[in-house]
């Protein structure tokens, strides 16, 4: 990978981006760059727009009726809203993991190969190889390798969430979006997923929304603090948490927020 390069080109560029649900503006002129093979955490109080921003990176918000946007988001220099960009192929490059683990009511195997199947790739050897690679990548292989063809609903919550991560990385995306992936999990499962993210970022760029400040400090390289739809501060995680420049940031991370 490009770890040795002195200059990291931003893989995701958010450029003066505003977003509206109907008349209600939820993101105000946000501009920020996400760096490749880094974990970027989005933090902020509920309703600050961090999830909305995350869900715009793979255009998940298009599903909501009555939304529109201003400004632009680019991945590798190409605008997401370029008429030539197909939403489906975009989502193949940008995987996503949700707050509530949501495996399909299928076998573990079929869950992981779903992104390949919908892309029309059905070769047995490729599917088998993908299942093993993805499950190993999500640190789940040893636990489920003997029951690949059993229902995914037989797994524990933490395992189901890691299965969802395995599914998200099955198609080898460049970017992985995680929307509070540990919110529904116990501390041990949370730790496992945090360890996993450490491994994953060797191949991926991760953007994570989290409410857990400790988690942000543990796992992220960079942190952005959003408040009421505005990007208040964005910088290295260490700097944000030890020496915030903005008063609002400091108030939030120290818990003195009103």
């Amino acid at each position, binding site marked *: 990978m490009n770890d040795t390069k002195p200059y990291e080109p931003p893989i995701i560029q958010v450029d003066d981006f505003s977003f509206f649900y109907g008349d209600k503006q939820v993101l105000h002129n946000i501009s920020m760059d996400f760096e490749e093979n880094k974990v970027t955490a989005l933090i902020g109080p509920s309703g600050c727009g961090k999830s909305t921003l995350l869900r715009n990176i793979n255009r*998940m918000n298009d*599903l909501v009726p009555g939304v529109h946007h201003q400004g632009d988001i680019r991945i590798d220099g190409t605008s997401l809203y370029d008429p030539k960009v197909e939403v489906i192929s975009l*989502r193949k490059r940008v*995987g*996503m993991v949700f707050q509530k683990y949501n495996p*399909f*009511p299928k076998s573990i195997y079929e869950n992981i190969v*779903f992104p390949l199947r*919908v892309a029309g790739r059905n070769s047995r050897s490729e599917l088998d190889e993908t299942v093993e690679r993805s499950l190993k990548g999500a640190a789940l292989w040893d636990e489920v390798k003997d029951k690949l063809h059993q229902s995914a*609903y037989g797994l524990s919550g933490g395992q189901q969430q890691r299965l969802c991560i395995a599914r998200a990385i099955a198609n080898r995306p460049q970017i992985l979006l995680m929307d509070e992936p540990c919110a529904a999990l116990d501390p041990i499962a949370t730790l496992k997923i945090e360890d996993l993210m450490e491994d994953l970022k060797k191949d991926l760029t991760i953007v994570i929304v989290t409410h857990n400040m400790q988690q942000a400090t543990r796992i992220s390289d960079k942190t952005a603090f959003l408040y009421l739809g505005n990007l208040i501060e964005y910088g290295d995680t260490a700097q944000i948490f030890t020496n915030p420049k903005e008063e609002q940031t400091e108030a939030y991370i120290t818990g003195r927020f009103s």
Partner: protein
Amino acid sequence: MDKDLSLPPAPKRPIGEAKIWLTSIGLALGLIMIFGLLGIIVYNGLEAFWPKTAYAFTVQNEPEGEKTTIYGNITKDQTRHVLNAEGKQESIHEYQIFTGNKEKFGQAFRFIDVHRIVNQEELPRLMTLERLEGGKAIVDPIGIKLQNGSVLKATDSEFLSDFQRLTDEADHVRKSVHRIEKGDIGAINNKLDELQREVKIIERSYDIREVNGVSVATLKDNPIVDDIKNPIAELAKLKEQIGELHREYETYTAQVAKLREHEGKDILLYQLGNNDVQEMPLDQIVYGFMPNELGFFGKLGVFWHHFTGFILDDPREANTEGGIFPAIFGTFIMTVLMSMLVTPIGVIGAIYLREYAKQGPLVQSVRICVNNLAGVPSIVFGVFGLGFFVYYLGGSIDQLFYWKKLAVDNTPTFGTSGILWASLTLALMTLPVVIVSTEEALSAVPRGLREAALACGASKWQMIQRIILPCALPGVMTGLILAMARGAGEVAPLMVTGVVKLAPSLPIDGEGPFVHLERKFMHLGFHIYDVGFQSPDSDAAQPMVFATTLLLILLVVVMNLAAILIRNKLRKRYQASSF
């Protein structure tokens, strides 16, 4: 838990909860009505198959008059109120007695005042006979006159087993004859019809004349077809085929004649209480038993014989005797066909309404219209089915594909009522149920699953097809179960779109393309109406009505249970959409 001892004592009746008993009474009333109805149907339906005790009644109508003896079962025990000579009301205890032998007595039932019965006896050798014609008969057998002239006496211990052997043999012959007549000869008749139609087509299209000793064919003015290259040779070929079929036909009729050689030679001698010896050919008897001689298990055997015969046999005597197999089969096939038609249409419609259509006033009004369709009286659907499906669609199909038959025989194929149109009409009628429940099932699929599928790069259709629809399947099945429950018992729309009181052949059989969707069919619901209210002897048909009702309920229950089992299986697999 009560630490506070100063709490006031609990009121005898919880305050504000005084009317709970009203709701429970409502439920109890509902349950009593449902189970009462089911109980009456099950009791009467099963009782129809149970052998009843036969009595010999000695009746004296005038105080010093002549005594007469009649044989029969007691079917009703009731009290009649009359005004006596002083103008006072008097109650008279009477029996309704089933005697059978309709052709001898003019009626199968009679009423007897109990006080006029001098003697009532369970004669052990009384027989109940089920006959091919004339319904049942209760007789006192004397013996069997065999074709070799010898007589088997009814007092012999072997009599009953000989009787059963002989009736079984006659039954076997009857079945063989039936098989040949309906199967082999029926097939030949169908082929003959087809060939004769071809002949008629050529004859109506071409003039064939002898000119100088040579046959010449010229096209007529209004030919049905005009593209036959050599009509003369074609005609000769057809006639030869017809001749061949006729010869085949002869061999079968010879076979039938041979089977029938011994028919009507063994004769049962019996009397009906007045010592006049009567004769009845044994092959007129389908089944006979001595009810008074039977123990419990003997009666159970007769019950089982009646029950299986009822389910598996064809009806006889204007449906009042015999079985109801064609009606069970027709109901089953029609319901299956209806489900096969309504499910895809309903599911596709619901997918469009829920997933693709832009939600707004237009879609909302479409939805309201669909829901209101469920409230349209079923006969309206029947009339629509007759007008649109039968006459318009069926007529167009006939014009396009069966025009030869239409032109020559002037008989429609699909342009007349039949099982396909009846099923389609019922499918239309039950469509709202399926659409509504499918829509509900679709909207109950968790949002997380939709987002997950889309985030994996699935298109909207892939998401619906691979994730949402499987999860919604249990809900679709719920709709289908409701649709089947409504459709299977519906009669009114069928009466105009395809049901008949007696169908000559089943919609699926071993002949030709095996599935004959254009055929008319029999239906249990219509059978109940026909037997109960259209038959000449409604008293005799009453047990049949209850038994048929029981069978209809059983069929609906069995089909619904099958659907429910499938649904539970699906639910287990797709437990995410617990709904």
